[in-house]
């Protein structure tokens, strides 16, 4: 018989989830929940597998659940799901402190990293990305080789980066933006596909490794989560994106453009049957956990504003289930 | 023994004397002999009344190559039979058929009938273990186990449950080693590896190991090849003693030895059994010209 909560899902939410799990376990009579880091999609796959002791009770996500995933849940009898938005994560573009701090725009990022870019010599056509150095992209940037270490296409962080930064950059070209309404697939293809000629380096999911690689190679930039920047301020520095640096405040108030929401989802059918789910939810949504000065912010979670916390906490208490996306 | 010491010795001396001068002709003579052997049929008295083991039409093949051709032979109860013949003529191969040791060579195939006390040795349903316990073997190349001397000898009795107590086992080991004439040399080092012995000592160890099980039939493939005359004498004495109760087939290259220890002698040539007769007869008045040629040290 299973007597502890089982949580799966995003590796980004994992550190936050485990803090809560641990404190919850130590402070109550319940066992500490088991938290697995499976990636958002992998988490949903298990979560939506069905109702029963062999299926997890909660799934963490670094993006919102997709309709297809929701449908799958429904098909497997997981009908009542509570969605909890817990805060934000900033995706930072950083380089070694030994190098010059970069001031980038999303457009620069798009031009530097997309597989196909608008023809530099004008016209509404797309060509294979010809840029070799940052200076080619934007004359105000230094003349160093474009070398960006980032997550692979299988990662949620990559998805978020592509959606927030690249899409933001490519939308600044009106003819591409026009695709958005006319040919959505085309739009995504242009904005989402990163170059594969070596300027963008898929570096795996280990953000610490990216930090270390940046340390060893001052010319390179890296893309990773905010918590790693927070913990490694002596080694790497964030670049400005559209004029703002990623900090708690800029991410929380939306001034920093590349940030994404973090969620977890709860299977209502398990509440009351698996011990401690309600209490765990209460702990997670308590002020001392996710509040402005709560222990989650220590770990790098960027808190929601007070009002949203209040409404969400209320909804969680009432176990309002997700109706539709 | 059938043949008196005196006579056999004289005979051998003669043989030795005649050997050297004829050597130069051997090569071609041997070829002639080989050709003759190919069409030879067994002469003499291959069959006996009180057969302990009997073989009928035994053919042995290594892959495509036939090594033994249609041998019919009986080995009598409590008899010592010697098998002689030029190197490579199939003596070991034939001997190994008798307790199915050839089973271990993948390419080796045995045809014909072999029986032990009327028991078909090559019955596919037969359990070879009791067979091999009854028909023991001393191999041509001494192959002691990489274990201590004691364990080497105690192994057979152990697996066949011949000793109940440690003391019984000690006794078996000691007697066997003594009978093989090795006891004096190894009694202080019974627990050192058998592979650290000299060539001759290893050979005697293998003999001791085999007789420790007291098999009914003992097959010995050149058991004295690495032994000095004294040790050889000791083994021959052992054979004489054993033959009172057991049946022994011995392959040897020493015709003196064959003459000394055996009751009957079988002469093989190129995989064929050429002649079987009382030892005395074989060494004095062989029936087949090839046999005569061989024991007198020439061919043809």
């Amino acid at each position, binding site marked *: 018989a299973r007597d502890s909560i089982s949580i799966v899902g995003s590796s980004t939410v994992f550190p936050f989830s485990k803090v809560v799990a641990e404190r919850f376990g130590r402070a109550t009579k319940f066992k500490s929940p088991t938290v697995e880091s499976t990636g958002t*999609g992998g988490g949903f796959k298990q979560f939506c597998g069905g109702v029963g002791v*062999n299926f997890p009770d909660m799934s963490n996500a670094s993006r919102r659940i997709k309709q297809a995933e929701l449908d799958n849940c429904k098909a497997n009898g997981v009908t009542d799901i509570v969605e909890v938005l817990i805060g934000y994560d900033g995706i930072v573009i950083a380089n070694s402190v030994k190098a010059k701090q970069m001031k980038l725009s999303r457009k620069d990022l798009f031009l530097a990293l997309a597989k196909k870019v608008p023809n530099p010599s004008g016209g509404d056509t797309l060509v294979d990305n010809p840029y070799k150095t940052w200076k080619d992209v934007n004359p105000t940037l230094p003349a160093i080789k474009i070398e960006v270490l980032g997550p692979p296409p299988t990662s949620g962080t990559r998805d978020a980066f592509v959606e927030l930064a690249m899409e933001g950059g490519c939308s600044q070209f009106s003819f591409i933006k026009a695709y958005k309404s006319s040919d959505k697939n085309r739009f995504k293809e242009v904005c989402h596909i990163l170059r594969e000629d070596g300027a963008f*380096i898929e570096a795996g999911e280990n953000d610490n490794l990216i930090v270390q690689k940046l340390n060893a190679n001052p010319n390179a930039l890296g893309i990773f989560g905010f918590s790693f920047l927070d913990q490694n301020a002596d080694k790497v520095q964030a670049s400005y994106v559209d004029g703002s640096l990623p900090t708690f405040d800029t991410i929380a108030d939306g001034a920093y453009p590349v940030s994404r929401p973090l969620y977890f989802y709860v299977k209502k059918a398990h509440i*009351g049957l698996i011990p401690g789910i309600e209490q765990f939810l209460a702990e997670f949504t308590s002020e001392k956990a996710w509040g402005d000065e709560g222990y989650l912010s220590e770990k790098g979670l960027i808190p929601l504003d007070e009002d949203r916390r209040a409404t969400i906490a209320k909804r969680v208490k009432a176990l309002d289930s997700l109706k539709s996306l | 023994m059938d043949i008196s010491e005196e006579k056999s010795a004289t005979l051998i001396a003669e043989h030795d004397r005649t050997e050297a001068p004829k050597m130069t002709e051997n090569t071609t003579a041997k070829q002639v002999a080989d050709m003759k052997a190919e069409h030879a049929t067994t002469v003499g008295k291959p069959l006996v009344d009180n057969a302990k083991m009997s073989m009928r039409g035994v053919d042995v093949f290594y892959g495509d190559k036939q090594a033994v051709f249609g041998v019919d032979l009986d080995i009598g109860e409590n008899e010592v039979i010697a098998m002689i013949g030029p190197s490579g003529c199939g003596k070991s191969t034939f001997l190994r058929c008798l307790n199915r040791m050839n089973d271990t060579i993948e390419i080796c195939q045995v045809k014909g009938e072999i029986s032990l006390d009327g028991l078909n040795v090559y019955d596919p349903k037969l359990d070879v273990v009791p067979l091999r316990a009854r028909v023991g073997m001393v191999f041509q190349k001494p192959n002691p186990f990489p274990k201590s001397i004691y364990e080497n000898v105690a192994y057979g009795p152990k697996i066949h449950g011949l000793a109940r107590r440690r003391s019984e086992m000690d006794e078996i080991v000691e007697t066997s080693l003594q009978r093989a004439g090795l006891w004096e040399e190894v009694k202080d080092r019974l627990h050192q590896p058998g592979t650290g012995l000299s060539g001759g000592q290893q050979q005697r160890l293998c003999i001791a190991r085999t007789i420790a099980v007291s098999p009914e039939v003992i097959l010995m493939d050149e058991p004295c090849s690495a032994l000095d005359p004294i040790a050889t004498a000791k083994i021959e004495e052992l054979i004489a003693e054993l033959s009172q109760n057991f049946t022994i087939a011995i392959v040897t290259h020493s015709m003196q030895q064959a003459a000394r220890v055996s009751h009957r002698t079988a002469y093989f040539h190129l995989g064929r059994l050429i002649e079987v007769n009382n030892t005395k007869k074989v060494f004095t008045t062989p029936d087949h010209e090839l046999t005569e040629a061989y024991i007198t040290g020439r061919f043809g």
Partner: protein
Amino acid sequence: MQALERACFFDLNARPNRLEYIIPPRGFMNSWVLIVLMAALCATIFVAGRSRSLNVATGVGGTRYLNSLPFYYGMLSALWAILPALVLVTLWKIFDGQIIEHIVISELPDDVVFEDASQRGLMLNQIYNIMNGQLSADAAPAYLADSVARLQALKAHADLLVAVLVVMMMVGLGGFAWWRINPQLRARAQVENVFQLVLLGCSSLAILTTIGIVMSVLWESLRFFHAVPITDFLFGLEWSPQTAIRKDQVAGSSSFGAVPLFAGTLLIAGIAMLVAVPTGLMSAIYLSEYAHKKVRAIVKPLLEVLAGIPTVVYGFFAAITVAPFIRDTAVSMGLDNYMAVTSESALAAGLVMGVMIIPFISSLSDDVINAVPQSLRDGALGLGATRSEVIRQVVIPAALPGIVGGVLLAVSRAIGETMIVVMAAGLAAKLTANPLDSVTTVTVQIVTLLVGDQEFDSPKTLAAFALGLMLFIVTLALNYVALHVVRKYREQYE
């Protein structure tokens, strides 16, 4: 958090104790007791069988006249007793829970109905949790308290029941076997048949595993080939799963070409083998043929540690120390003018991986080299061969099958390794033979596709299965070749 819910954290043993049935003390007949009991019985029956055979033997004139050693009679009786009992216990352990649960569920009030099995499972879980004190019984419906008590009682009785059954069965069958003992009983042959059957069972496990693997990748692979033509997959020169990332997009035919992955695998595994085979083999030779015994006793286990260092460590080492060093060296030699030189390189990954698999070759080869009989070495040395000649021309050929086994294992490990490649060679699938460039391997793609953020039935995920299947087939073919090559060159000593 509400105060009421904060029961005491370290008092998990305080369990509700409202039981209506009389039950034996908990855990009385738990598995350990049963195991010890079975072992003891088995030993007793062995001894009984053995001594009966001795008794029987005295009747016929000593153990010589038994078909087998007394040991085998004992063994046979013990096998008769233990094997069926083991089967029974195993079956019981698999099914008893289900039977008991079924009883408990069926005794629930009629108005409790389940829509499906999972709800039933949850209800059971709840009952178990109440039983273990993990859930408070107060919040649950009243009838559950009865179920809890029933469950507890049933469990205890069931344990007792199985124990009694097992004992009876062991005594019965063991007794039967014991009774059957007579001098003609072919005890040894029967014991050996069991032995052989067990061995056969063990080796067929490998086949079952293979079948299992094929089954677990075949279905998904077929679905993948439904979406992507198999020829595109086999012969496509471009691997770029990002273009096929979305469900709404028709999988780009050009983006699932497995050729670069296989090329990358070949390149990295090749480099690794270039490092590992000579080093491993030479180490084995040095250790077994030249080095002092004491040196060997220390160095061999030390090298074996290399195989046990977690791959993350190698990964960091390759990515942070080796790869930048290689790049800097290449750049300082001016190689970057002629070819791509990146900070992620096949060379770095291959080199480090090579070091990791050294022990596979060194240790296994060392053992088989050591097993070559000294007389062979003597034969060659006596002819005046130098040691190296003896090794190269006599020892190695004689030890070849074992060495090849080690090499195969090493190749396998190189093909299967992910962490080092991800960290040091990157994830970009490039079709290149340039070791200074970044490449990726089949296994790495499988792992990233499987564990990444994914939709479960996009071609991207399914591609992992197809890759797995392909890899399986390719290595199978290579192994067939290896088998025949080895057969051809095998030299059997003695």
